[in-house]
């Protein structure tokens, strides 16, 4: 067996192992996906909304936050205007005049994490909720999340993010993407492994976040970093699948790539910060599963890219050389042939592919998108998921150059 075959087999093994985990978790807990603990009491909550140039969205976000079902006087809304150069502050000010529960903090631009830390010092709530300025929670979102905090070990609870703007092909693919992300994240909740508390809506135990020093301003994905921080301290994170928040997603490829590059860079930064916790007892599942799982995902993706480049190189060389010789009289089209022979890798590749389709189908069936045809799943896997390569390669390139400035404000 050559090295290349060995690498492929290891990749298939890890890939199948992860898919089987999700399939087993789903089969075991599918009836509990939407369950959440009904709160016995309602802790005070400070909702932080960092905003930078959000004049178009902030109004609707605030209206959604005002409409949230939560006992009167138990919630406050703090909008942090992070040095916006548009009319964000002006829009928010109009709301503050009518609603006493809304506070506007104006500060020079310093990024999301710094804005959150700045506001954190001024919060009084037992819990703090972080809501992106272009995200819109359902009315019942908070009450479907806060019950989790009755477990003293829970330090963060996240919600299910759905796509608001479903226009264009890229928007439609992201609807599918966000559904799968939410579904797998919920399944990981059953093994105490929710490793991201998303930006659109997550709630944190205020005392824990303050004790840990707040959000890390050097990390490009402060939501991943804070989750790993609380997990590494032995706290639990939860996800409420029935608490829904809608968010605006990029509809052009350039913005989508920019967003995903930031996610990748932040993810890699976080792995680098916490990799020493791998297989340690710190946070139990954190060391034994979360860190190895996310690290393995990055490694698999990188190895996958290298194998893909090799494949393209080998096939490309043949095609280029054929085209070159075709200029000298070689009959290029005459020798086009397709032969098929059973190989071990084809067997595992086909099995992995079938399991992936089954896994996606299961996820869609249990999300707001509903069941999807195999054809649509194929289009999603082949046309959209393949795009994941671009931001990952760009992130690795930026990381190699040590260039993170583009993403800091």
């Amino acid at each position, binding site marked *: *067996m050559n090295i290349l075959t060995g690498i492929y087999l290891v990749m298939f*093994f890890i890939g199948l192992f992860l898919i089987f985990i999700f399939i087993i978790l789903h089969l075991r807990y599918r009836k509990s996906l939407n369950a959440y603990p009904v709160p016995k009491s309602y802790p005070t909550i400070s909702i932080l909304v960092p905003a930078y140039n959000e004049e178009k969205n902030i109004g609707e976000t605030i209206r959604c936050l005002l409409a949230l079902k939560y006992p009167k006087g138990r919630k406050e809304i703090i909008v942090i205007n992070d040095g916006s150069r548009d009319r964000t502050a002006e829009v928010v000010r109009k709301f503050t005049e009518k609603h006493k529960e809304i506070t506007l903090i104006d500060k020079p631009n310093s990024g999301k994490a710094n804005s959150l830390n700045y506001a954190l010092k001024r919060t009084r709530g037992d819990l703090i909720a972080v809501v992106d300025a272009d995200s819109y929670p359902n009315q019942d979102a908070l009450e479907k999340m806060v019950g989790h905090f009755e477990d003293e070990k829970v330090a963060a609870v996240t919600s299910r993010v759905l796509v608001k703007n479903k226009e264009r092909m890229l928007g439609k693919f992201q609807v599918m993407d966000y559904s799968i992300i939410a579904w797998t994240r919920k399944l990981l909740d059953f093994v105490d492994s929710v490793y991201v508390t998303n930006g659109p809506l997550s709630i944190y135990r205020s005392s824990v976040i303050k004790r840990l020093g707040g959000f890390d301003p050097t990390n490009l994905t402060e939501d991943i970093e804070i989750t790993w921080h609380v997990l590494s301290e032995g706290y639990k994170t939860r996800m409420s699948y029935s608490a829904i928040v809608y968010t605006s997603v990029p509809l052009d490829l350039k913005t989508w790539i920019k967003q995903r590059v930031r996610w990748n860079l932040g993810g890699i930064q976080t792995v680098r910060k916490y990799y020493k916790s791998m297989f340690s007892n710190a946070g139990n599942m954190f060391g034994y599963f979360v860190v190895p799982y996310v690290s393995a995902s990055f490694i698999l993706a990188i190895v996958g890219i290298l194998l893909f480049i090799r494949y393209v190189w080998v096939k490309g*060389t043949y095609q280029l050389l054929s085209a070159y010789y075709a200029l*000298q009289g070689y009959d290029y089209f005459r020798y086009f042939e397709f032969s098929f022979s059973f190989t*071990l890798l084809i*067997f595992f590749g086909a099995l992995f592919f079938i399991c992936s389709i089954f896994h996606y189908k299961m996820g869609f069936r249990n999300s707001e998108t509903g069941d999807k045809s195999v054809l649509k799943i194929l289009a999603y896997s082949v046309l959209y998921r393949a795009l994941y390569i671009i931001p990952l390669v760009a992130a690795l390139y930026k990381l190699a150059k040590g260039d993170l400035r583009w993403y800091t404000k």
Partner: protein
Amino acid sequence: MVHQIATSRFRVFIEAFLAVCVVFLIGFSLGYFIESGRADALMRYSQGYEIEALDLRLQNYYYQLMGEDTCTLAIEQNFLFADQLYEKGLQLERYEESNQITAQMVNEKKLYVLLKTELWMNSILFKEKCKVGFDTIVYLYVNEPENSAKVAEQKIISNVLKSVKESRGNDVILLPIAGDIGLQSVELQKRIYNITSLPAIIINEKEVLYGFQREEDILKRLSE
């Protein structure tokens, strides 16, 4: 301890791990079964060809003793055997590419190279003795090319030669021979024909061509 794991959150990981192990066990067993079947089939063929090669050698002695009137029959046999060897050689390569668990069939490959070399020698003898006009094209290639450009180049050359064989049928004996698998008889031929690099094409034991050649250019060098 076992009970603790079976009822803990780690249970799902153990179940998933065991499930993948079972799948891999089935996959490997199936793969091994199919690959062994292919290897056995090739072994059977090569044993059969060893006998045919001996037979051909005996026929050769016989034809040398007998008059020139036996030439047609001898050449017919030579062509038949050459075509069979060519087809099986292609099959061997395909199997070798597909087989991922079982060891490479190096010995079978060496045997095929020896048989082809012997056939080549036979062809040279027949050409001299029978004075008939058939052509031999010996294609010496690299068995394990060091880069994808070399792989592509060899595949293209092999396609062109296949096409030449198809267009000239029984007027041409095509003998693709791995030129770098450590066989003294092949090394000797490389020295005789002063082969400096691979891949190389030897046409009628006279001309040595290197690299890509157009089909028309090869056809021009063959007998009319």
